[in-house]
């Protein structure tokens, strides 16, 4: 219940955080702490140093960035839920953020922490993937942008280097021709998704674009590519292909077989809900 000892430094800026990360082997960033502290308490990890970026207020914002909405990495789930710009232009993101954990978790956890943690059971990674969003990260060599499709590498593994700090998340503005849905299936309201399904569909009459993101169906968040292609080709039952190419886990929330069935049901419902117009 009590973490192993570690040193603690407060980063005053992103550059300072990068510098602190570089100064020590086995240093880790601390944002909202709502993924990291549970892991430390169970002593599944024992970093030597925590670099607290939670006080960098400049990284908490939601801004209009032309055809995209930019969200500071330190923006808490609670503030994502309440952001008028997101409600107007990309309501999928605040809707999904509002289903994370419980109010106490949303008062602390951040969007950057959710994405950097790389939990295949997390809600926002699959949302970012289905939206073809992107993130900015700053490291010793400067800033680079990582597309969502490149970000998630394995369970709890992302494309971020050990000295990189995620600073901004960008999602596209959806238009009147877009429909969306997020269905999170779970046994108790505070739980992670047994399976989650994100659908974003564009079209006026016929379907022009379709993206389906899956939570808890493999080692990373996934896209249901076979379903997407079947949908664009106008096939009759695209949801039947929803578990193609997935590798769902078996755990106390459900067996792999159960998840394969569940994902087909949820994708069918999500596509109904997301149908534009």
């Amino acid at each position, binding site marked *: *219940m009590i973490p192993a000892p570690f040193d603690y430094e407060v980063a005053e800026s992103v550059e300072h955080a990068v510098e602190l990360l570089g100064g020590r082997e086995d240093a880790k960033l601390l944002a909202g702490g709502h993924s990291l502290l549970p892991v430390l308490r169970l002593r599944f990890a024992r970093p030597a140093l*925590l670099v607290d970026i*939670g006080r960098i207020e400049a990284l908490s914002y939601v801004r209009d960035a032309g055809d995209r909405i930019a969200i500071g990495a330190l923006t808490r789930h609670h503030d994502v839920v309440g952001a008028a710009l997101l409600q107007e232009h990309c309501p999928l993101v605040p809707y999904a953020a509002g289903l994370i954990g419980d109010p106490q978790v949303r008062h602390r956890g951040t969007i950057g922490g959710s994405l950097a943690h790389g939990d295949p059971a997390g809600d926002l990674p699959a949302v970012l993937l289905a939206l073809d969003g992107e993130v900015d990260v700053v490291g010793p060599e400067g800033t680079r942008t990582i597309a969502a499709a490149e970000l998630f590498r394995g369970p709890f593994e992302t494309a971020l280097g050990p000295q990189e700090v995620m600073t901004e998340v960008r999602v596209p503005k959806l238009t009147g021709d877009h429909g969306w849905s997020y269905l999170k299936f779970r046994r108790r309201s505070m739980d992670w998704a047994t399976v989650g399904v994100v659908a974003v569909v564009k079209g006026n009459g016929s379907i022009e674009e379709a993206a389906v993101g899956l939570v808890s169906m493999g080692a990373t968040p996934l896209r249901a590519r076979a379903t997407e292609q079947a949908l664009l080709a106008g096939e009759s039952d695209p949801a039947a292909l929803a578990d193609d190419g997935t590798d769902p886990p078996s755990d106390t929330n459900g067996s792999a077989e159960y998840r394969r069935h569940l994902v087909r049901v949820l994708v069918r419902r999500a596509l109904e809900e997301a149908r534009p117009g």
Partner: protein
Amino acid sequence: MRRVSLSVNGDQHELELEPRELLVYVLRERLGLTGATVGCDTSSCGSCTVLLDGESVKSCTVLGVQADGHRITTIEGLAENGALHPLQESFRTHHALQCGYCTPGMVMAAVSLLAENPRPSEAEIRHALEGNLCRCTGYQNIVRAIEAVA
């Protein structure tokens, strides 16, 4: 060790903390405020809920050093001049507790809810308590107690 300055229920405290000390233990063991309890080791039960700058948080999932410079309110800080907070009074009159272990966390979660949404519906109250577990009451009277104040 790190010097930390905490305002708890309006009192200023200067403490020397080990970075790994969780806020709930800072409150319970350093300051003797045992209202916030520890009911799990998975951040699930909510019995440790306190307010940080007026918003509910699970104090088992916040480091004492993260709270440096911030304002903490615990169940011990709700009563004013010896009069119970209306939610505390309502929990009593509606029989919203049995063993009482979850109660400080329930009340603090409710205080945070009503600060954000003074007139919640029954469904909103139930939703706002999703991070707080009670093994005794079956929740009905907890929801009624909060509805009566809202």
